[in-house]
């Protein structure tokens, strides 16, 4: 049998091969019996027992999530528990039983009205409809005795397939047993993807409907690097996928063969990923995306909650630096309490610092208060950077807000410290204005995903232009080169926190371009560190000069191939 490849989004640069187990959340109901054959009392009992079991399950999942992932994620379950006790819903189910439906059909019927009510309300209410569906499916599963897969006890060598995985599902997976997972839905930044990265499980998300056609017990390889799910893999594919990685983890800082120190840092999105970052040998955190503190909740995190999270990160790296990026949202990441209008082109609209200096000014101040306080309280060295900066004015205004917040904390006699300050280099404007920006700041960090998108004018989401969206394009390399020169001319250090930084093939090129720090998904740190110790700075510089002189992306790719 020949192998079949399905494309999705790879979220961990790891591969695994194994046997498919499906994780189904949907329960299919048989035709209901005639109402005169339904024993209403027995069905009421069945429903009330299902409610009790669901409550216990939810409480247990809530506790586990709070412990293993975080209190904010755990709050999702509080809402579920409350809906479970909702008299309007339970009443509707009970009425349906009285009218002659068995408990399972009555549950479906009783939730229908509630789900429609939420959907009709629109906006943030509509999101609640998904919660209600979740609860309904849970009750149906319990009432019909449908078997539930215990995700924490899957057989060794399992490839888990699912429509989608919730945070609590993913948190249960044991990387020792699960060879990988793939989901039909979800993107790079979905909870499942982030968890997969932090626990080091090969994973591909967003495969689409075609994933659903894979049968249970099929042999499947998951290639998290190429973003492929391979059904009936050939012997060769199988071997390659099973090989795993054989890289030494270096927990100490590394330097090039000729003694130049290079900082290798981790990108993280939640405090839950700190442990994994330390375990993979990260010297620091080069990008702490704070969006995840703000997503999937109904109200923003307050100053105290943010302070705790930032201090936790700083304490995890007592000898290192933690670069926190202030809130970076726009029309593409809807948040219930942020009034971001849908924009024709969200990537060229009000996002990042544009929102922080505009409609989200209050959130920005709260975040900065928490950060300045964390700088004084936490062990490691804090650095704070602003996303999506295009002008010197934006930097000056941001520095004014920081000064304001500092004075306020001074007045209140609250301990604080102004951290190192920097910007993300994502816009071509920031590259061109690099020197003026560097004079006002301590550091830059290049976000290569966005920089590539804006330099090449090619959307990250549009398949049709994905050939243009490649950081190896000489235009992008020249932009990086210019940013590095500007930073150093202005006495600032410069790092890179885009995906490009974690590509082991590019380490020599990036060091040759003069980057002082590379920050990446924790799982790629051992590979990049292994490369660094073999690199000679002078040779890397010459290599970078050649790449900068290239005319096409293919020439650069050829040089990289010849160089290995």
């Amino acid at each position, binding site marked *: 049998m020949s192998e079949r490849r399905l494309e999705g989004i790879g979220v961990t640069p790891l591969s695994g091969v194994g046997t498919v187990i499906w994780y189904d959340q949907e329960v299919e109901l048989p035709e209901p019996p005639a109402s005169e054959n339904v024993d209403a009392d027995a069905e009421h009992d069945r429903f009330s027992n299902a409610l009790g079991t669901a409550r216990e399950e939810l409480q247990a999942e809530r506790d586990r999530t709070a412990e293993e992932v975080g209190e904010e994620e755990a709050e999702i379950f*509080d*809402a579920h528990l*409350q*809906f479970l*006790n*909702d*008299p*309007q*819903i339970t009443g509707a189910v009970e009425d349906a039983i009285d009218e002659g439906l068995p408990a399972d059909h009555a549950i479906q019927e009783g939730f229908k009205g*509630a789900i429609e*009510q*939420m959907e009709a*309300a629109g906006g*943030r*209410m509509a999101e*609640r409809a998904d919660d209600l569906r979740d609860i309904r499916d849970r009750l149906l599963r319990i009432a019909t005795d449908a078997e539930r897969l215990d995700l924490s006890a899957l057989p060794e060598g399992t490839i888990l397939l699912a429509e989608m995985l919730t945070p609590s599902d993913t948190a249960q997976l044991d990387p020792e047993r699960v060879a990988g997972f793939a989901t039909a839905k979800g993107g790079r930044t979905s909870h499942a993807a982030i968890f997969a990265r932090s626990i080091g499980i090969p994973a591909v998300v967003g495969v689409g409907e075609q994933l659903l056609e894979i049968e249970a017990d099929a042999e499947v390889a998951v290639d998290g690097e190429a973003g492929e799910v391979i059904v009936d893999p050939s012997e060769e594919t199988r071997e390659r996928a099973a090989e795993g990685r054989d890289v030494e983890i270096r927990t100490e800082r590394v330097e090039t063969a000729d003694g130049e120190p290079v900082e290798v840092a981790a990108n993280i999105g939640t405090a839950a990923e700190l442990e994994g970052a330390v375990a993979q040998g990260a010297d620091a955190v080069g990008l702490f995306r704070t969006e995840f503190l703000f997503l999937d*909740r*109904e*109200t923003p995190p*307050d100053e105290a909650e943010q302070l705790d999270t930032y201090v936790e990160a700083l304490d995890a790296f007592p000898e290192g630096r933690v670069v926190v990026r202030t809130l970076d949202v726009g029309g593409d990441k809807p948040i*219930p*309490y942020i009034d971001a209008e849908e924009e024709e082109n969200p990537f060229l609209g009000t996002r990042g610092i544009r929102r922080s200096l505009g409609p989200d000014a209050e959130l920005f101040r709260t975040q900065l208060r928490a950060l300045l306080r964390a700088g004084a309280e936490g062990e490691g060295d804090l650095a704070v950077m602003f996303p999506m900066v295009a002008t010197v004015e934006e930097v000056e205004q941001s520095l004014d807000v920081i000064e304001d917040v500092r004075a306020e904390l001074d007045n209140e006699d609250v301990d604080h410290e102004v951290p190192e300050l920097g910007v993300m280099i994502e816009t071509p404007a920031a590259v061109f204005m690099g020197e003026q920006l560097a004079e006002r700041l301590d550091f830059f960090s290049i976000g290569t995903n966005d920089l590539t998108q804006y330099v090449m004018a090619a959307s990250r989401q549009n398949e049709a232009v994905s050939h243009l969206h490649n950081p190896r394009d000489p235009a992008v390399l020249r932009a990086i080169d210019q940013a590095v020169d500007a930073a150093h001319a202005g006495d600032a250090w410069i790092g890179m926190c885009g995906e490009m930084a974690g590509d082991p093939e590019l380490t020599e090129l990036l060091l040759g371009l003069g980057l002082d720090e590379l920050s990446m998904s924790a799982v790629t740190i051992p590979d990049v560190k292994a490369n660094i110790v073999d690199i000679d700075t002078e040779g890397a510089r010459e290599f970078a000069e050649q790449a900068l002189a290239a005319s096409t992306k293919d020439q650069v790719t050829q040089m990289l191939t010849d160089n290995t």
Partner: protein
Amino acid sequence: MMERTVTIVPEAGLHARPASKLVETANEFESELQIATDGAEPVDARSMLAVSSMAAEQGEDVRLIADGPDAEAALDALEEVLSTPEGEYDDE
């Protein structure tokens, strides 16, 4: 039956945590408890679904209606929830 009109103080209005807290509190009493926005039909204050569907915002006045043995205490407790800025609940 007792009735009281209260202005919503939490910034988030009757959504999310304030709504949760209200429902939780309503469940602690024996009396029938209802809540209504201006001019609307009262809904069951024990129903998260009903309460959050009201979409009541900060600054809006709502009517609280209680009927039962602990009506007054229940109204006091619900008023307390609606007049407490978010994040200042005792248990948080």
